[in-house]
C-alpha cells in the first residue's frame, strides 16, 4: 500500500453544505447555530441536531478553538521517529499517542535501506530543552521495543522543523453536483 485512503463517509447534500459553510470557521456570536440554520435554510432545532449527529459519527471531532502555536509560545516542535518491533507497534503506538505533549502519532511503513523508522510522534514545546525532555520520555516508554539494526541506522531520531515552506488547509471542494 502506498497511499492512505479513507472510505468517504456518506454525506448528505445538506451535510456537505454544512461543512462548506463552517470549514473556515463559524461566527463567534451569541447564537451561532441560529446563523447556521439561517444560512442552510433549516430550523435551529435541525441545525443543533445535525451538529450533534455529525459529532456522534466522528465527522466533527469537536467545535473548538485552534490556538496559534507560535503566539502561545509553543515555538518548538519535533517530529520524533522510532524503529520499533512490528509485533508490538500498535500497542506502543497507542501508549505514545496518549502522552499529553504528543499531537499526532502514526505508524508508517519503513523504506529500507534509507528509512527504518515506523512510528512517528509529533511533540510541541516552548523551549528546545522541553522537547528534548519529551523525546527522552518517549524513549523510556519504548526502551524495550526499540530495534537495534547494528549498522549505521539509528533506532530513533528527532527532526525539528527549521522553516515552514508551505502551509495550506485541507478543504472540502465545492462540487456542483
Amino acid at each position, binding site marked *: *500500500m*502506498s*497511499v*492512505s*485512503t*479513507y472510505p*468517504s463517509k456518506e*454525506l448528505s447534500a445538506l451535510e456537505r453544505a454544512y461543512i462548506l*459553510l463552517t*470549514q*473556515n*470557521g*463559524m*461566527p*463567534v456570536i*451569541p*447564537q*451561532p*447555530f441560529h446563523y447556521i440554520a439561517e444560512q442552510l435554510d433549516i430550523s435551529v432545532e435541525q441545525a443543533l441536531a445535525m*451538529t*450533534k449527529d455529525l459529532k456522534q459519527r466522528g*465527522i466533527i*471531532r*469537536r*467545535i*473548538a*478553538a*485552534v*490556538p496559534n*502555536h507560535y*503566539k*502561545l509560545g*509553543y515555538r518548538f516542535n519535533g517530529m520524533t521517529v522510532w524503529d520499533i518491533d512490528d509485533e508490538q507497534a*500498535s500497542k506502543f503506538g*497507542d501508549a*505514545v499517542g*496518549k502522552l499529553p505533549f*504528543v*499531537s*499526532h*502519532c*502514526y*505508524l*508508517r*511503513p519503513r523504506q529500507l535501506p*534509507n*528509512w527504518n523508522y515506523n512510528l*512517528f510522534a509529533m511533540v*510541541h514545546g516552548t523551549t528546545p530543552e522541553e522537547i528534548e525532555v519529551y523525546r527522552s520520555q518517549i524513549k523510556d516508554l519504548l526502551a524495550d521495543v526499540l530495534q537495534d539494526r547494528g549498522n549505521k541506522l539509528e533506532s530513533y531520531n528527532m*527532526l*525539528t*522543523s*527549521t522553516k*515552514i*515552506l*508551505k502551509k*495550506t488547509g*485541507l478543504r*472540502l*471542494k465545492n462540487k456542483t453536483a
Partner: protein
Amino acid sequence: MTTTQEKFSNAPASSSDYVLDKLDRALINLLQHGLPVCENPFAQVAQEVASNESEVIERINNLLAHKVLSRFGPMFDAACLGGAFTLAAIAVPEERFDEVTEIVNSFEQIAHNYKRDHQFNMWFVIATELKEEIAEVVKAIEAKTQLSVLNVPKEEEFYVGLYLPV
C-alpha cells in the same frame, strides 16, 4: 470564499504581541476542548469562566483578530473530506534547496511543506482527491527534481489533537 470569521470579527487586527490576561487564558484552555452544542453556547462558557456572554464573545473575537487563535469552529475529521493523503520527504542537496522548494510547492496537491534538520530535509503532505493521483504526483515530483521521494503513508493512527495549556 470569504471566511465566516472575517465577516464577524470586528476587532482591529494587529501584528503586535497581544498580552493575555487571566480570562483570555481560561478561554483558550476551555475552548480547545470544545464548545457545547446548544442555542447560547457562549453563555454557558461564560458561566464556567465567571464572566458574561458579551465579554466572552468580545474576547474570543479579539483573540481571533490578533491571531492568538487561528480558527474557531467545527474541526472535521479529514476522512469526511474524502480523498487520499500521504507524508513524503526528499533528501535535498543544500545548494538546490530553494529550487526544489519552488518545484514541490508548485504542486497544488502539496498541503504542508517543512524544512527539517535531517538528511531528509524536506517533508511534505500530499493530498489528492483520488488515490491514484498520489503516485502520479510522486512521479511528477521525482521527474521534475531528479530526486527520489520517500513515501510514508500512515498505516495506523493513534491520536490527532493537541492541547496547549497557557
